[in-house]
Structure formats: C-alpha cells, structure tokens
C-alpha cells in the first residue's frame, strides 16, 4: 500500500492551487452577481494546460494521469465549484466522449481544441422526457445519403452555448430494433443551421455557468460525425458517465473543502461571549465532522482514480464516491452557513454561494437515488 502522491502530482496540485487562489477566487463574486461566464478564467486555464488533463500530448493534452486531473479539479473547485464544473463538463463529458470512442480524425479535429482549452466541449443527453431513464430519448437522426438529419430537443445542457463552445455530442435514436430504440452519439458543431439554443437558463445557483436547452430542427451534419458505433450511443454514454461521476464528485469535494476553509477562517475571527467561536465545542464538532468526512471522501476519490488508472472495474466506486461526496458537500454547505450565522446568508460570502451551488451535485450525472441503485446492483441485489 502507498497513499502518497508522486512528485508530478504534487506539482500539478501546487500549480492549480496557485491559479485558483490568484485568478479564480477574486473574480467569482462579480461573475456570480452579473451571471457572466468566466471566459478569461477558462482561457487562462487552457494556457496552463489544465483543460488537457487526462489526455495525451498528441491530442493537445497535458498528461494522461487521471489522478492529476482530479487533483487539479479539486483545487480549482475549492476556489469555485462552478468553474470546476465547466472544466469537468468540457474534459469528462465533452472530451472523453470523443477521446474514448472517436476515430483519429475526430480526435484531431474536435478533441485537440478542447484539450488545449481553446474550445469547450459539451454533451447533450437529457431531454424533457429523458433524464434518469435515458432510454426515453426522443431526439432522432436519420441518414439522408451521407448526411444525418437530426430533430429533437435537449434540456439542461452545460457549456453548450458559450462563445468558446466547439459543439455538442448529442444522443439520438437512429434505429429501432425489435421495438426498442437504438441510440447513437453524433457530434453537432455549434452554429450548424437549425441548431439553436435557449438563452442561459435561470437557476437556483451556478449563476455564471452556461446551461441551455437545445433545439434541433432538420439539423444536417455529415455521416462522419457519428461517434463510435451506430446504435451503441447509450452504452458509450454510460462509460463516459462513469468517469463524469467521479469528476462531478470531485467538484463537490472542492466545494466542501471551500466551506471548511471559509468556516475555519470565520470561526477564528468571530468573537462571542468573550472568545472566538472556534473555541466552543459545538462549533469545533461541526468543523471536525466536516474535516473527517472530507478526508474520507478524498480517500475514496483517490481509490477510485487508482482503479481507473489500473484498468479495474470502478462502476460501484464511482457511484459510491459521487453519492457520498455530494452529501458531504450538502452537509458542509449547510453547516458552513450555520457557523457564519446571518453573514452566511449574505451573497457576498462564498458559503452563501456554496449553499446554492451544492444542490445540483446531488442530481447531475445521476441522482443520489440512482447511485444507490447502481451500488446495490453491483453488490448483487
């Protein structure tokens, strides 16, 4: 057994932490208030190589070390979990969808700009009638000669409408076999005629994230835009989703750590009854619980990453991590606001944002309820 990080991993952690502290943290309050997408931050992250983590240099990537990606993602998310999520969507959902199943030409053409951070990737699965049960997909694509003609709509799609978006991998029904829909993944470049997006959706949190509904009306893309095998889109998606569960979980871990950091700082400064509230056992217990849960979740993240890197099965662990850490995020955000008292309810405090932002982490990439069913299935139930 060995629980230590390599020299390279430590270096990536330092680089990401420094960037998060200097460039992300100071910018967020205003971006959040103005609901502005963090273009400058994302561009700089690309220049630093952070958007190419987990991809090889031949496709513009930085390193294939998966753990390095998680380590950097956690550090970015400690400064702001929403920026962390933009990173996670681009790399895990957009990038890995193409990296794992795309052909050489597709990787060169679409993955490389994503990995270099010049463009952002996105993935469109969810529909008005298909969320947890992706089998309910209604968007369909038919071949007209050498061209896919796609019709349908998608809901709640992250990164889909920014100026940096390269396009969206959408899932669509392409065949019906024995009365069952067969789904394929097709890359639709941004600005393809007939491919339109709603304005950025109003959300409870994640103000500066880009989340849109997509409309596809007779959208025509070349046959070559099919990613992976025809009819295997759902299976491919589940593979990508397993990776994305780990990384969305990592953003929740960052959020929890941010809540702990902010609460420690506040508790040491805030004086009541003649002493800092950090001296009171009830406050200490909250902080100790947060720290312990975060540490346990982080070990589970490392373990899951290690399984991924060693080519072992990690479906159960990915779900366990995502389920557990999103709850750790909830408890941390809730207790952080409690420790901050009235101040925690004010939007100028990061913990107020965290309280809004954590919730979707219990929903996206599979609800907690679904994660528990996945775990139980893996346990043989």
């Amino acid at each position, binding site marked *: 057994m060995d629980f230590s990080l390599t020299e390279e991993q430590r270096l990536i952690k330092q680089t990401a932490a420094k960037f998060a502290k200097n460039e992300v943290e100071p910018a967020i309050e205003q971006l959040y208030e103005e609901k502005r997408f963090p273009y400058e931050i994302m561009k700089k992250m690309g220049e630093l190589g952070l958007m190419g983590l987990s991809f090889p240099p031949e496709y513009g990537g930085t390193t294939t070390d998966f753990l390095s990606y998680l380590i950097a993602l956690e550090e970015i998310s400690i400064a702001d979990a929403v920026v962390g999520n933009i990173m996670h969507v681009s790399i895990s959902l957009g990038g890995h969808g193409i990296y794992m199943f795309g052909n050489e030409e597709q990787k060169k053409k679409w993955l490389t700009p994503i990995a270099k951070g010049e463009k952002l990737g996105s993935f469109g699965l969810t529909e008005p009638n298909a969320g947890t049960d992706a089998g309910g997909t209604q968007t369909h694509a038919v071949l007209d000669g050498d061209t896919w003609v796609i019709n349908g709509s998608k809901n709640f799609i992250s990164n889909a409408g920014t100026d940096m978006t390269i396009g969206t991998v959408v899932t669509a029904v392409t065949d019906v076999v024995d009365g069952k829909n067969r789904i394929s993944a097709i890359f639709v470049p941004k600005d393809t005629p007939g491919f339109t997006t709603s304005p950025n959706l109003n959300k409870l949190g994640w103000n500066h994230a880009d989340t849109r509904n997509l409309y596809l009306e007779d959208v025509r893309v070349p046959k070559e835009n099919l990613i992976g095998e025809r009819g295997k889109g759902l299976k491919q998606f589940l593979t990508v989703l397993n990776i994305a569960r780990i990384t969305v979980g990592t953003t929740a871990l960052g959020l929890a750590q941010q809540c702990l950091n902010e609460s420690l700082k506040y508790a040491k400064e805030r004086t009541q009854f003649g002493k800092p509230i*950090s001296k009171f*056992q009830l406050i200490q217990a909250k902080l100790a619980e947060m*720290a312990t849960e975060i*540490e346990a979740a982080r070990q589970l993240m490392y373990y899951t990453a*290690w399984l991924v890197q060693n080519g072992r099965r990690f479906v159960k*662990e990915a779900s*366990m991590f995502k389920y557990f850490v999103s709850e750790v995020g909830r408890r941390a955000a809730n207790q952080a606001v409690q420790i901050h008292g009235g101040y925690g309810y004010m939007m100028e405090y990061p913990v107020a944002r965290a309280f809004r932002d954590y919730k979707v982490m219990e929903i996206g990439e599979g609800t907690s309820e679904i994660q528990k069913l996945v*775990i139980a299935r893996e346990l043989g*139930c």
Partner: protein
Amino acid sequence: MDFDFSEEQLMLQDSVRRFCEKELPKDVVRKSDENEELPLSIWPKMAELGWLGIALPEEYGGTGGSIIEQLIIMEELSRKSPALAICFMTTNSFGARTIFNNGSESQKKAFLPKISRGEVKFCLALTEPGGGTDVLGALKTKAETQGSEFVINGQKTFISDASVADYMILVARTDENPAKKSKGFSLILVDMNRDGVEIQKLNKLGIRPSVVSEIFLTDVHVPLDNLIGTRQEGWRHLLDTLNNERILVAGYALGIGRSAFDDAVSYAKERDAFGRPISQFQAIQHYLSDMYVRLELARLITYKAAWLQSLAKPCGVESTMAKLVASEAGLEIATNGMRILAGYGYMLEYDMQRYYRDAMQAVVTPITNEMSKNYIGQSLGLGRSY
C-alpha cells in the same frame, strides 16, 4: 498511490479468513457470547501461525510484519469474534508494542518471545473511576518508591481482558507535583498474581466474552526493574500505543460492520415479501448501498492511518479520524441491519443483535467520539476546547 495489498498481505488475509471460518463458526461464537468466555482454545494456534508476534522483529520471536498486517488480522478476527480481536489487541498492541517501543533489552527478551509464543497475555490499566476522557486529570493510582520496590495503591476500571491477562501495563502517578499535566506518570509492569491485586468483573451490554474489570491495587509491591521506559515519561511512552489502539479499534468496527453487512445481504436475498426477495425493493437496496459506502470509506481511512503508522509518520489525527469514521459506520451498519432483519434481528438467536451491541463499544472507547472531535478540532488550529 497503490491501494493493493502485497502478495504476502493477501496470503495473510486469506489464511486468517480461512482459519476463522474453520475455528470460529457461528455456534462457537454464539456460545462464547452467551457464556462470556473467550474462545481461547485457538490462541496457541494463532501463536503457531505467527500472528501474536505479527509486528515484532524475528529476534523477539515475531513475524516481522507491520501495522498493516496487524490491522488485517484484527479486521478478520473481528468479523468472526470481535471479543477475540480485542484480546489480540490487548496483548499485541498494549503488551507487545508498548514493551517493544519502550522496554529495556532484558524486558524485551523476557516478554516479547513469550507473547509471540502465546504464553502470556496483557492488559492495559489506564482508566480510573474518576475519568477516562480526562484520564490524566483523573489518574490517582500511585506508585511510591520503597527501597528497591514500587508500592502501588489505587483503582482502575473498564480494563479489557484483565481477567485473562498474566500481566498489566499499569499507568501510575510517580510524581505528585509534575511541571506539566502530562508528566509524572510511569509505566509499570505488574504481574496479575501479585499480592494486593484484585479484580472484579463488570457486566456489560455487548462484546461480552471480552470481559472488562475493575482492578483494585492495595500495597502491591513490584521491583523497580519493572519500570518500562523512563520514570515520569509514561504518558509520552504510551502515545504510540494509543494511536495503534485507535487504528485497531477502527479495525474492530470494520470487522463487525462487514459481518453485519454480509448477514443483511444474505437475509435480504432470501426473505420474500410481496412475491419477491426484499433485496429487490429500492428501500432495502438503499440501506444496503449506504451500509457498503460507509464500510468502504471506513476501510480506506483506517488503512491510510495504518500505513502512516507503519512508516512511523505522525498519525494521531488520522488514527482518531479512522476510529471516529469506522465506529460510527459500524453502528450505522448494524442499525440498518437490524431494520432489514426486522423481528428476526431482534431475536437473540440471530447474530445481528450481537453486532448491534458489539458495535456500540467502539463509539465510546478508547475515547468517546465527542472527544475524538475535540481532538480533531484542535488539530484544525482551533485551540483546545477541553
């Protein structure tokens, strides 16, 4: 990073597992619980297999393993007999580790090979009626020097395995006015058969074969040579053992949690309701998922602490977190197991109620989880709150 056990560790785990399957079947363990008696007939076999000297070097009859191997044995024993696991801990950690870290060469030569051969057992006499959490504040047992002897007077309580131990590692006050609260204590090796040592068994809720006792010490004379380590430095000497204890108690809770989980899964798959096994209902699946998640988290954080201690790195906070996470997990898993087995779980002929009773002990020992959080809070730079 590397989360794999080595080949040798896997073999050890496998052989402890097979040994326990064979030597500790459920009826033996149930009888042991009913009679409040440890299944010690297998102790010599454990010695033969090299487990009792697991973390000792070969020159002292040990097997040369590390804390990780020690934890593997603890976890596997606890899956079958948590009480026997605790006895393994009192001898292997309280006895062997304390003497190995702090004893003189002649003490090591005298006791460690005997421990490895399974000839002697130990207990640790620390807690007193006046306090366990604030143990240093409450510690009144005195050892006074008279000629070439210590004369000891005082009382200890909640001492695990005092009833089966041959020796105790006694923590006694040897300086009435120390410069610091943590000074003025000494570790003294006391033969349980000495005149003036009396023990009285206490009845308790769970882990019943692991008997805890009060120890009364009245004018007990032992040679000054029985001092372990340096006089007045007893508390410092003990810290490494106490971290080790937290890791092993986490292992104890892991073993119970694992058994409770396994029993709950098999029951859920066999029990039919509304025309299908209850394992197919989402409400039951969610319990089982939660139980497994808690178990896996506890395992990871416990082995991380063991890994740190095996490399002699600081592990005070990590071992405390491990004990906190694992003990709460053990109790939660056993509680959910009780819900899944419902009426049957409440019946004494099923083991779930025993896991439930046994799991509680780790929540309040060796320190309460409230105290664990105080300690973790302190480590976050919040100052001492107690």
